[in-house]
C-alpha cells in the first residue's frame, strides 16, 4: 500500500480504526469520544463503525475512567483510554502511576496492564493555564510507564499502533497544535523502530534534540540556521521512556554541541533529564554544555501574545543555536 497524504488527526483516527478492526479486544473509553467524535475530532465516526460498547462515552470521571481501563486491561481487553487534556493528569496520576504502572511489579509479574492512555497537550490555542500544559515530565518519572509523543503524521499512526501491541501501559501524548498538520502516512513503514529516536535532519555544527510539536519548530530553525551557514542535526525523540539514547550519543559526540528543546516549563522537564544524561555520557566530546531551551517557568497565560512569548519558537531556537555555535549573542540578549 502506498503512502497517503493525510492529517495528524486522521492518522490517529486511522490507527484506532485499524487496531479495532484487527483486534476485537481493543476499545475506546473517554469523555466525548463517541457521539461528539472527540474534543478535537479525532474519534469521529468510530462509534458508528464499532458501536457504543467499543467506543464508550464516559461520564466526566477521569480517575475512574483510567481505573476502569486498568481493570479491563487486567482482564483481557486492550483499552485506549482518552484523557481529554493532559492538564487533567493531576486527577489520574494515582491510577496511572500507583496502579497501571506498578501492578505488574507489585504482583510479582502476574498482572500486566496492557492499556494505552491517549491524551493531548501543548499551547497554541489560547486555552489558558489549565488547558495548555505539557506535563510529560510527570509520566516520564514513573517506572513502569512507557511514554511516546508523536511529532509527525506517520508517527501519529505508528506509535499508537505499536503502543497497542505492548504488554504494558503506554502513554501517548499528542499535540493539539498538530492535529491539522498534513503529512505522509505509510501504514507499512514506521519512521523508525518502536523505542528509537529518529534523525529528522542531519548537520555538523550542533545537535538539536526535541519531540512533539517542537520538532517542527526545530526543523524550521535548522532551515534558518542553514541560511547562516550553521548546520544542525534535528533528532525527534519519539519514545521518551524508556529512552534509547544510542543515536543521541552518536550524533552529539560528532557535533560536540547539543541543545534539548521542550515546550514544557523548563524546570524539572524531560529536557533537563536528557541534558543531564547526555553530559554524563558525552562529556569528553562536548565543546559546550548541553543547553536546555524550554517554556518559561510560568503558568500559560491566555493572551495570545503572552502565550507565544512563553514558548520556544523556531526563531528563538535558531537564535540560541547560533549563539551556542558562533558565540555571537542575539540582539535580544544584549
Amino acid at each position, binding site marked *: 500500500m502506498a503512502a497517503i497524504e493525510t492529517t495528524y488527526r486522521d492518522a490517529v483516527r486511522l490507527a484506532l480504526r485499524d487496531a479495532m478492526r484487527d483486534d476485537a479486544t481493543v476499545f475506546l473509553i473517554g469523555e466525548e469520544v463517541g457521539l461528539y467524535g472527540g474534543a478535537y475530532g479525532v474519534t469521529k465516526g468510530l462509534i458508528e463503525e464499532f458501536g457504543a460498547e467499543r467506543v464508550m462515552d464516559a461520564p466526566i*470521571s477521569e480517575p475512574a475512567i483510567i481505573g476502569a481501563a486498568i481493570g479491563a486491561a487486567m482482564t483481557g481487553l486492550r483499552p485506549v483510554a482518552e484523557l481529554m487534556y493532559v492538564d487533567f493528569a493531576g486527577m489520574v496520576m494515582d491510577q496511572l502511576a500507583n496502579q497501571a504502572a506498578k501492578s505488574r511489579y507489585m504482583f510479582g509479574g502476574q498482572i500486566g496492564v496492557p492499556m494505552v492512555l491517549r491524551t493531548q497537550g501543548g499551547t497554541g490555542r489560547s486555552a*489558558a493555564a*489549565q488547558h495548555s500544559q505539557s506535563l510529560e515530565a510527570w509520566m516520564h518519572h514513573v517506572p513502569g510507564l512507557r511514554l511516546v509523543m508523536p511529532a509527525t503524521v506517520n508517527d501519529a499512526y505508528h506509535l499508537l499502533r505499536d503502543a497497542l501491541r505492548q504488554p504494558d501501559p503506554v502513554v501517548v501524548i499528542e499535540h493539539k497544535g498538530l492535529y491539522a498538520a498534513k503529512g505522509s502516512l505509510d501504514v507499512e513503514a514506521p519512521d523508525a523502530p518502536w523505542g528509537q529516536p529518529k534523525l529528522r535532519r542531519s548537520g555538523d555544527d550542533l545537535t538539536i534534540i526535541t519531540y512533539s510539536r517542537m520538532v517542527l519548530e526545530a526543523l524550521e530553525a535548522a532551515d534558518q540556521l542553514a541560511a547562516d551557514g550553521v548546520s544542525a542535526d534535528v533528532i525527534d525523540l519519539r519514545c521518551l521512556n524508556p529512552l534509547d539514547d544510542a543515536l543521541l550519543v552518536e550524533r552529539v559526540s560528532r557535533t560536540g554541541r547539543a541543545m534539548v528543546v521542550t515546550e514544557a516549563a523548563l524546570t524539572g522537564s524531560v529536557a533537563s533529564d536528557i541534558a543531564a544524561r547526555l553530559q554524563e555520557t558525552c562529556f569528553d566530546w562536548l565543546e559546550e554544555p548541553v543547553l536546555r531551551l524550554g517554556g518559561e517557568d510560568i503558568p500559560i497565560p*491566555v*493572551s495570545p501574545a*503572552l502565550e507565544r512569548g512563553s514558548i520556544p519558537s523556531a526563531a528563538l531556537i535558531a537564535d*540560541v543555536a547560533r549563539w551556542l555555535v558562533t558565540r555571537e*549573542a542575539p540582539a535580544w540578549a544584549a
Partner: protein
Amino acid sequence: MTQHARDQERASPPLRNDGPLARYRMMRRIRSFEERVGELFLRGESAGSMLHLSIGEEAVVGLTDAMEEGDTFTTHHRGHGVFIGRGGDPARMMAEIAGKAGGYCRGKGGSMHIADRALGHLGANAIVGGGIPHVVGAGITARNIGAGRISVAFFGDGAMSQGILYESMNMAALWRLPVIFCCINNQYGMGTRVDRSAGRVDFAARAEAFGLHAAKADGADVEAVHARSLQLVQAARAGEPGFLEIDAYRFFGHARMDKSPYRTAEEEAEGRKRDPLAVARARLAETGVASDDDLKAIDVGAAAEMDAALAHAIADSAPPLASMFEDVFDASTCAPEPQSVRLARVLSEARR
C-alpha cells in the same frame, strides 16, 4: 474594599431585595453580555475559542440574588452569568475574555478564569469540579473566624460525575459548614446528555444521601429558583449546608465552535422554550409590575451597556510581554528567572 468595588457598587443596582424586576434586568444584562461575547469571537477579538455561553441559564440570578455582600463563590467554565449576577463589571470581564491588559486578570486568565476577589469571586475554573472544594475551605474560614458568611459553588451537571463533589458534600455535611452546592443542569456536558452520564438522574437524591438539604428548581422560572435559594441560604447560614439543582437548558453549542450535531433541532426548539427571560418578562407584564415600555427600556439599557463593554474590550491594549513573569509568586517575594537571563549567564563570553 477596592476602589473598583466601590465604583461598582455605585454604578450597579443594589444586588438584592428589589425583587422580580431587578432580577429580570440582571438576567437581561447577562444575556446581552453573552451575546456580545459571541460577537467578540466572531470579530476575531477573543483570546481563543473556549467561550462557553450561559444563555438559557440566567435563572441562576435567583440564587446570586439571595446571596449577600461578603458571601463568596466559585464558578465553572460557563460562569459569566453567575459573576454578573454577583456584580461583575462587564467591561473588565469582556476585556479579560479578549486577553487584554485591562481585564480582570490582566489578560492572563481569559473567559474560564475570571475572578474579582473584592466581590467574593474566588475564581472561575476550567477544571470540571475544580472549584467545588474551595467553598468547603471558605466555609471553614467562615466557621473559624467569620460572621455569617456563606460560600456557594456553581457548577454544571457534568460535575455531578466528579468524585471531588461527593468528597466536598460529605465534608460540608460532616462539619456543618455554611456552604451551598449549586448544580446548573443544562442537560449536557459537551455532547453528552445527562441520561448518558448518570446511572440515576436524580441529583437531589445524591445530595440528600450525603446529608445535605437538597432541592431542585425550575430553571425557566427565576422566582422559583429564588424562593428555593432563600430557604437554602438561610439554612446554610445556620450551618446546614445545601444543594440546589437549577433545571435549565443549554440554548447553544458547548463552546463557540460546537454546532450540537448530537441533538435534534426539535429537542433544541423545545429546550429553548424554557427561556427564563421570556417567562419572567411575561409574568412581569401580566402582573402589571412593569409595562412593556419599562421592559423595553431595560433591554435597551442592557444592550447599550454591553455594547460599551465590547467596545472597551476591543480598544483595550494587549498586556506587555514582560508581565508574563508577574503573579507567578507574590510580588513581595521573587519572580521566575526568564530564560533569556539564564542563557546569557551560560553563554556570555564572560563565562570563561
